[in-house]
């Protein structure tokens, strides 16, 4: 065990001695390591000179590196390097790359966009991204909607209108359909039963014709349903009152109800409780006008079902 001592003869030690003869070798670091270390020091000094680094009282050393960018008002500014200025520059570069497309989308009338393959490709891909990030949570990823929650955007049935202008208004300002409980009238359970049968008969669903006849009276009389849904039951797109004559349902799950009784119950439940939960948020504050126009064209052309009038 004590042979180890002999090796220390002549080798460089740190000079510390413990317990009479215990010493420590001084092995110099490999030179590549040392140089790498010096390089990191040179790097950090260069960094201090170029970029914001040292706090100085109420401010800091800004460094000599600068960034020049244009803000959204088109004002050009030059400032010291910072991640926020760098983002401005990145956004500006991206804007300039997409600008020809956005400019064209903005300048092209809605119905001409589909005719340009270049533009409609752009709308399809950029629109899909916007739709997934913002709309899919409610309207689902393919725009097929969700029963009792958000309407199908792929069919040609429109609560608020399917023209470009109407869709654009819907997206920018949001929508909120309201129907008071029992349509705001004083209705008994029997009244609602009759009304439900009448409503079902409008779209050719199975219904009790005697009850539907009484419901017809109520719909156009005491229950005042006609004032919102129209005398023909086709609804009014200005207030988003549903078209009751088609087979498309959003709130009363008629297609999902297994039996005629359950269909009546589904419609009755909607009449009894009224509707206040159809909230389409407004996107005007969150998305730019360009993005909303793009989404409008995406909903109308790509998801399909948009109408001319």
């Amino acid at each position: 065990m004590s042979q180890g001592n002999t090796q220390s003869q002549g080798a460089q030690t740190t000079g510390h001695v413990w317990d009479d003869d215990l010493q420590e070798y001084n092995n110099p670091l490999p030179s590549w390591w040392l140089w790498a270390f010096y390089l990191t020091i040179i790097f950090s000094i260069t960094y201090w000179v170029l970029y914001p680094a040292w706090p100085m009282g109420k401010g800091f050393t800004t460094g000599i590196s600068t960034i020049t960018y244009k803000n959204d008002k088109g004002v050009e500014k030059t400032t010291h390097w910072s991640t926020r200025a760098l983002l401005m520059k990145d956004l500006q570069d991206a804007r300039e790359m997409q600008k020809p497309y956005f400019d064209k989308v903005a300048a092209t009338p809605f119905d001409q966009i589909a005719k340009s393959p270049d533009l409609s490709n752009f709308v399809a891909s950029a629109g899909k991204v916007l739709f997934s990030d913002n709309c899919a949570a409610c309207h689902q990823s393919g725009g097929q909607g969700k029963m009792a929650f958000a309407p199908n955007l792929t069919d040609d049935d429109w609560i608020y209108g399917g023209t470009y202008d109407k869709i654009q208004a819907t997206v920018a300002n949001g929508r909120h359909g309201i129907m008071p409980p029992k349509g705001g009238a004083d209705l008994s359970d029997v009244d609602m039963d009759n009304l439900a049968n009448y409503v079902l008969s409008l779209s050719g669903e199975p219904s009790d014709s005697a009850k539907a006849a009484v419901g017809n009276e109520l719909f156009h009389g005491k229950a005042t349903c006609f004032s919102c849904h129209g005398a023909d039951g086709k609804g009014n797109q200005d207030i988003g009152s549903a078209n009751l004559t088609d087979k498309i349902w959003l709130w009363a799950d008629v297609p999902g109800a297994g039996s005629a009784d359950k269909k009546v119950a589904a419609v009755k439940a909607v009449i009894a409780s009224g509707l206040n939960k159809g909230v389409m948020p407004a996107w005007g504050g969150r998305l730019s006008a360009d993005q909303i126009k793009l989404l409008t064209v995406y909903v109308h052309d790509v998801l399909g079902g948009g109408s001319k009038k």
Partner: protein
Amino acid sequence: MMDHSKIEKNLGLMLVMVLFAISIGGLIEVVPLFFIQGTVEDVKTAEGIKMVRPYSPLELRGRDIYIREGCYLCHSQMIRPFRDEAMRYGHYSLAAESQYDHPFQWGSKRTGPDLARVGKKYSNEWQVQHLIAPRSMVPESVMPNYPWLLASELDYSDVGDRMGALRVSGVPYSTNKAEYDQNVKDFGADVAKQLHIPDSQKNLIEQAQAGNFDGNAANVSEMDAVVAYLQVLGTMVDFSKLDNDSFVKYR
């Protein structure tokens, strides 16, 4: 010079000096930020009202539940100044926007999306349904169900104490007339009312009933609080009134 062996033979002294040595790095990073002007951006309306305000009592309880349920384990609240984040989530987060958050919810893990600007993005109905059963709204979601939020009554008996604790750490909730008047100057009269600790329970109930976040106006549930909190996230600063580079100068 202190003798080396003195330190090595005195454990208490060594402990103090080790602590000092390892805190130097942290201190150099943190302390200057308290002195550099503009670390926390000054965000005011044209009328001089501060845009970022402390949470209302209901929102504050919602935030407590957010922390209790561990939402921060999957969700960050910090939009970084990168292009992809700006495109997806909106304007990057400001230091000012979390100045009243103790502790802040910046987070470092995104299993789900960032929530810093989720306020007003969806309807209350969506938030409630999504919290009860996320997969009913987003089929591929891995977020857990939180059905008890709707079933549980909100305990707001101690909301005043909770505000009082935050007040100690510098959040301007008011306890007396002078503080209240200062809040009226800083935040406007409507907000100042919400920040007054003696009225906290009354304000909480009023906001829950007026907002009816959970779709049931009769009670005040934990859902009311969480949704009120989610709906305010990232909405206090009105970026539409500012140039998109308004906050570059602070860095």
